């Protein structure tokens, strides 16, 4: 069956994820319970938002390291507005405005001053971290309570969390934009060759500023989702862990880290892969210190296999 073998090679992340599920199920049957599946679907929402924003940035040939700590900062902005007004509407408007502003700033520095995205966004990572601690001193937190946070954090529609449905809707929207609009083609073109894209009439700077604004907006959404699920905000949240999980998800999903290539579907499967590992290692009571080591080992094994397969395909092509 040539089709199956082709599917196995090209979409192998699907099979790797399913195989992992089977392994975890054999170790602990509770893993595949409806409750646990549902828990996974909620846990992956913030990572998924980071992954989605990062996807466009990486395909365009850049990187946004400020997304993780950015989402912590935006969560705190939401918390502060909630504390002051007791409502969420103003807070959400503030988060959207702040995140778009941060993304615009990142994009302008990268395009107009021609600074490397790595440096610009790394600086923003530290700024966001510092500002978070400035707004709420370490050790303190703001509790978020009320209908909105319960709705986002805990309510379901037809057995699925609203937050997960929101994530899926955003992925579908992103898929349409990526595959069926000029902007999607422009992002791929810029990631392949800025020079050639410019020659073809693509406004390269505008595309790049656009991807940074989108990624920052996604980290704003991630901040809202994260804080709603937990019910509080504090500056000590692990924003960088979130960032790395998001990057891992898209890379595992076949996005080329050098830019120019990637699929939204692949990114989604990569996200499920990360979600399954995170969840299973918790469920199996893997000691916290070993948790990261196992995660690293599993990712290395999966990506290593992918890389070897990719190379063998390259050889075949020649």
């Amino acid at each position, binding site marked *: 069956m040539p089709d199956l073998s082709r599917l196995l090679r090209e979409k192998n992340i699907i099979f790797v994820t399913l195989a992992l599920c089977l392994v975890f199920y054999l170790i602990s049957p509770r893993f595949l319970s409806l409750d646990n599946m549902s828990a996974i679907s909620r846990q992956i929402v913030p990572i998924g938002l980071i992954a989605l924003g990062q996807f466009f940035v990486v395909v365009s040939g850049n990187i946004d390291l400020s997304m993780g700590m950015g989402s912590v900062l935006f969560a705190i902005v939401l918390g502060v507005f909630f504390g002051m007004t007791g409502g969420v509407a103003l807070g959400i408007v503030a988060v959207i405005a702040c995140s778009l502003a941060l993304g615009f700033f990142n994009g302008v520095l990268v395009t107009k001053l021609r600074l490397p995205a790595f440096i610009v966004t790394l600086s923003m990572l530290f700024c966001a971290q510092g500002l978070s601690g400035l707004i709420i001193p370490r050790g303190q937190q703001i509790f978020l309570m009320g209908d909105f946070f319960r709705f986002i954090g805990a309510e379901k529609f037809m057995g699925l969390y609203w937050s997960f449905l929101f994530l899926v809707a955003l992925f579908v929207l992103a898929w349409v934009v990526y595959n*069926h609009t000029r902007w999607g083609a422009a992002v*791929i073109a810029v990631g*392949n*060759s800025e020079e050639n894209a410019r020659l*073809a009439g*693509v406004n390269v700077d505008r595309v790049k500023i656009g991807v940074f604004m989108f990624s920052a907006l996604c980290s704003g959404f991630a901040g809202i989702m994260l804080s709603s699920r937990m019910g509080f905000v504090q500056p000590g949240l692990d924003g960088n862990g979130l960032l790395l999980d998001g990057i891992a998800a898209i890379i595992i999903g076949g996005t080329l880290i050098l830019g120019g290539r990637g699929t939204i579907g692949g990114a989604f499967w990569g996200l499920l892969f990360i979600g399954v590992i995170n969840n299973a290692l918790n469920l199996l009571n893997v000691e916290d210190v070993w948790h990261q080591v196992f995660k690293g080992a599993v990712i290395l094994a999966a990506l290593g296999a992918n890389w070897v397969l990719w190379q063998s395909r390259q050889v075949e092509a020649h």
Partner: protein
Amino acid sequence: MTRRLEMAGIGKTFFATRALDNVDFTCTAGEVHALVGLNGAGKSTLMKILGGVYQKDEGEIRMDGQAVEIAAPADAARHGIAMIHQELSLINELNVAANIFLGSEIRHAGTPFLNKGEMARQVRAQLDRFGLKLDPNKPVRELNSGEKQIVEIIRALMSDAWLIVMDEPTSALSEEDKEMLFEFIRRMKAEGIAIIYISHHMPEIFGIAEQVTVMRDGVIVLSERIPDTTEDKVIKSMTGAELDQFVKPHKQITGKVVLSVDELSSPGNYEGVTLDVHEGEIVVLTGLRGCGAPELAKAIFGLDAGYNGQVRYLDRVLKPGRGPAVAVREGMGLVTENRDKNGILPPLSVRDNIALPFLEKSVKGGLIDGARVDGIVAKAIRDTSTKTSSPEQEIRFLSGGNKQKICFSRWLDEDLKLLILLEPTRGIDVHAKADIYRIIEDLAERGVAILILSYEIDEVLMLGDRVLTLFEGRKVQEYAYPHFDKDRMLADMAGAGHTT
């Protein structure tokens, strides 16, 4: 109405150099006009003026009798002129149709969504018009170089180009793709497209063109209809009637064989090449771009394992693909054609760049002997007369000529036995060239065997003790000094007598 481009009395001066002088050039719809000349003859300057990259100093460009101004590439595009360069400007990860419509996509009316079906349909219609078989939905990365070129041309045609300038279009193509491209060109002619075809390949020119124009030193020396001229005449006018009286100090090659290559073949690159290089001898490989010589040289240096045949070096058979580290230890050196990519390490200093291959030999007690390295570096800078403010200067700030001298100085070590040079003076000014020729002669004097690849005929004649001409990966002829025949060599390189 037959469309017509006329360039009349075009002149261009760069600083003190007269690049073009009173050049008349015309091109008519439905015809292929071949433009030939050696490097520096003025072809690309003329085409850059037509493309709006350079501005002419004198003369007039007329389109269908009307004078037009081409001040920028956008003006050229507006007048229907398209340049197809050797470095193609496609996006590998997008498919054929998306590349063709990039920047001017068709959308479903009133929505932001792409009308992929319509774009594919329009591309297919164009492809059908020219009898080309290509799937508009295929990603460009899966196309070969010939197909990519076709996509680029189709893109130009779909933005209403009627005059296509092709710069050595077949240099990277397989035989099959060449045939496809020629068929495409014939169809374009039939559809009333005009083509300016820059090439050195005589069989191609005589097979496809209606008119041939030869440039030399910035002027047009020959412009004739193809049936009225001959390959011989074209080649003679490229090189000039006055045959250069070339003098080189006669050298008796008595040393033993350092490098011996026997029937080396790599499919698609080179085929059955045999050559020897003796101690103190300079052997030059020459041909057109795409003749396979760089690949051959790299295989000898151990960078490529995929060949058949044998490479003997100092009476030992070398293992294919043994890598540069082993080659260097055995006393082989390589200076690549692409200094900035493969030659230098741009962020490092002049000192570090020179010292790199010597580090292993400069270790004392596990540490690098800094004083010894300094000595080597100072000597290298002196020997090559490299102009640098200090050895600590970052190499990327040096001129092309000085960078090249440093690439050389790395190998001026007493252990060197064989030096391979790929296009040693590419992109280098006249003075640096003279320095580099002197370095090469000195090395040969010292007994180093030298294998050079050069595309510049004058350089080939000046440096070589022996010259091998290559055409499409095969050795055509071997010439030993003083029996050099410039015209014969050029004819060999251009594949005269071959049929395409």
